[in-house]
């Protein structure tokens, strides 16, 4: 008769952690074809009205470009043109800034409570129209409806609600100080979270009494035009928010405009550096939210299945187009085989495809140029000698798509471990001691995000204090809240957005 004995529950070598190392080759891998065969469940976009051409939103009105220059915005899930947008030239930028400058005279003199009313109204209309906005966001950016519906739009509304609440309480936010606004805030936002980045920037600026000229990225100018409709619907005074579209040349005109009093930029480190050079020696305050190469550290005492889920969320959220993505996985050596095995199985269940399908986990890569950049890095990784693994998920025949990808056998000196790839590409390194994990995590020019996975609370405090990054998550990843400041160290940027810290970037204290 077989019985468990008392001895069998005494300490033994931790063979659970070694199991896959021992048996990996003998046991057939699990197969997940069934989850690829879900019937299509597309969110309808038939009721969305998109114009053929869009101009600017200046002085409360939609206006045409003066030069007639235009560019196309592409739906990355198909490669088709969604609409044509005006390419702002000097005269257009001047018009937008002067509209903001004029509106500032009245807007900054409104009471905080009055400004708050407008912001609350905007937040409520965003909530009411959130499904429509989520669909538009998917169509222009390629992100999935699952994320735009459940993450982007709720956060967009939450940011307006949050800063609406501060508008009449500025003196409580900065006790003992006299708080005044800055003037015209120039804002340049990226293509990975078009509406959310607009909300991060516009809401605190308006709450503090500034007016805004904002430029969306040239691949995602559509959803902010819907936001402009909402500003009209909310009867936001004309000129308080002005929107101009265009590429880097438009951005440059805006940055160097003599009438701006504040600059906020989110985008690449390369452009961030250019802006810094341009503004050096001026009195214009600026905040820069730039790139990242976040380390996600998994200790062997972490809950393995939930850590795997966290790795998935850290790198494959928004196709990896996230500045705070956990793109470098650092996993303790003993559990690495187990984690990698589980990760591969989990990747098989990720559905890559139509962003508007409710079952899609990974949507389209934002642009052809970005897809080329990602594919270049995948090639570089292979030529550097790293081992490539991609899931077997089928890809749609049209549009820009990339399979979830991971690299093992990578070294700290590999380009794929150093460069921000900004796509669904994860590098996996191992470590043996906490010190080694901290050293590897900090050995990067960036310092935006990080993650720590362990079942021990004390370890969480020890490790997170040692990592040089603006935001560090413990046993979770990519969680955002308007009350929490966000921003980076080193080449990841300057200043903070969100929370009271985010508000302080838009006020003058005396």
């Amino acid at each position, binding site marked *: 008769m077989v019985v468990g004995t008392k001895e*069998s*529950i005494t300490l033994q070598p931790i063979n659970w952690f070694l199991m896959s190392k021992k048996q990996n080759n003998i046991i057939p891998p699990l197969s997940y074809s069934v989850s690829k065969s879900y019937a299509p469940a597309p969110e309808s976009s038939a009721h969305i009205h998109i114009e053929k051409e869009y101009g600017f939103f200046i002085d409360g009105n939609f206006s045409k470009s003066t030069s007639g220059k235009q560019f196309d915005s592409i739906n990355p899930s198909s490669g088709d043109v969604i609409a044509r947008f005006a390419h702002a030239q000097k005269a257009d930028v001047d018009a937008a800034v002067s509209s903001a400058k004029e509106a500032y005279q009245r807007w900054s003199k409104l009471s905080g409570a009055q400004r708050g009313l407008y912001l609350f109204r905007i937040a409520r209309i965003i909530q009411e129209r959130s499904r429509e906005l989520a669909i538009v966001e998917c169509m222009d950016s390629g992100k999935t409806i699952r994320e735009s519906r459940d993450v982007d739009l709720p956060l967009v509304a939450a940011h307006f609600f949050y800063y609406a609440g501060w508008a009449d309480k500025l003196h409580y936010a900065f006790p003992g100080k006299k708080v005044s606004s800055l003037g015209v805030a120039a804002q340049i936002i990226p293509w990975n979270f078009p509406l959310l980045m607009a909300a991060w920037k516009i809401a605190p600026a308006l709450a503090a009494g500034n007016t805004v000229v904002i430029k969306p990225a040239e691949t995602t100018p559509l959803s902010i035009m819907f936001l402009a409709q909402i500003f009209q619907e909310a009867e936001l005074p004309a000129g308080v928010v002005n929107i101009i579209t265009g590429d880097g040349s438009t951005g440059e005109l805006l940055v160097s405009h003599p009438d701006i009093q504040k600059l906020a930029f989110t985008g690449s480190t390369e452009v961030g550096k250019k802006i810094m050079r341009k503004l050096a020696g001026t009195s214009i305050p600026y905040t820069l939210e730039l790139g990242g190469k976040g380390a996600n550290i998994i200790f062997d005492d972490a809950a393995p299945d*939930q850590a795997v889920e966290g790795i998935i969320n850290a790198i494959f959220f928004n196709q990896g187009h996230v500045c705070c993505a956990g793109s470098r996985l650092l996993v303790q050596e003993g559990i690495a085989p187990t984690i990698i095995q589980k990760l591969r199985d989990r990747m098989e269940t990720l559905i890559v495809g139509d962003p508007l399908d409710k079952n899609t986990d990974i949507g389209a890569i934002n642009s052809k140029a970005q897809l080329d950049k990602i594919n270049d890095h995948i090639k570089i990784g292979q030529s550097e000698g790293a081992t490539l693994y991609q899931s077997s998920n089928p890809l749609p025949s049209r549009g820009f798509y990339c399979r979830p990808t991971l690299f093992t056998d990578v070294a700290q000196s590999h380009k794929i471990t150093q460069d921000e790839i900004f796509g669904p590409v994860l590098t996996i390194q191992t470590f043996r001691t906490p010190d080694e994990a901290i050293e590897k995590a900090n050995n990067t020019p960036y310092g935006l995000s990080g993650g720590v996975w362990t079942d021990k609370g004390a370890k969480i405090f020890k490790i997170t204090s040692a990592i040089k990054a603006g935001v560090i998550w413990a046993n979770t990843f990519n969680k955002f809240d308007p009350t929490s400041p966000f921003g980076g160290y080193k080449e990841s940027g300057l200043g903070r957005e969100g929370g009271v810290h985010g508000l302080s970037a838009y006020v003058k204290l005396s």
Partner: protein
Amino acid sequence: MTEQMNFNLIDCPPVDEVGVQERVARLGKRSIKKQVKEEWLKLAISMMDLTTLEGKDSEGKVIQLCRKAICPDPNHPEFPSVAAVCVYPPFVKLAKKHLQGSNVKVASVATAFPSGHAPLNHKIDEVRQCVDNGADEIDMVISRGAFLASEYYRVFDEIAQIKQACGDVHLKVILETGELGSLDQVRIASDLAISAGADFIKTSTGKVQPAATLPVTLVMLESIRDHYYKTGKKIGMKPAGGIRDSKTALHYLVVLAETLGDAWMTPDLFRFGASSLLNDVLMQLVKFEDGGWYQGIDYFTAD
């Protein structure tokens, strides 16, 4: 008995409750439509352990249930039979007789169900009697009192001895997760039951609230997956209690499909322990066949 049968507490990985809840919430957003929905609903019927476990159970009630199990909807004889009928030990013989000629199995709860408070030799006798009377499957309960006192070896021994009494008959081990208090404990109990010889692990008796939940089911499926990675052996899963409608059943199947994959999408490795689920699934299926009209419960037999 078979290869190494031991259980080491230190081998049980921790479980993060928040992470588990997020995962099931995400899986709950999967949209199952059209032909996949129809296929999965039929699969759900074939995975059902149609259950009656009342003090007032009568022979007539068991006979009715057997009929329903073989042919769930007389208007649609093409619908599959359920997997098994689940009854108390005194009804095993009767159920066996009335299921003859069909491939519906007889499952019997045993081991002083639902509390498990009885001397071990009584439990073993009860199991032997069920087996002798023709039960194909035994649903045993673990001694939660011993488990919560960390007397894991005692629980292990009980399961191993019951397994021996079962012989070739399939053993489902009920963890009664509603009494275990945390997902960490659910994971330990799952690993323990599997290592002691369970063919299936089952969430609940249905007599304690909460019964089956998706987070608990996910943790148990993860335990089964780790056992597979380790040994290549496939252990079955049975959520029981509280699964009353088609939509919930489909969520369970999504969690199953995306955790353990294709190989587990079969009645041999997954069961629903339920009594009222069947008619809801039938209503949904008939709605498909009848061109999308919602169905009334009066058109389905109450058994």
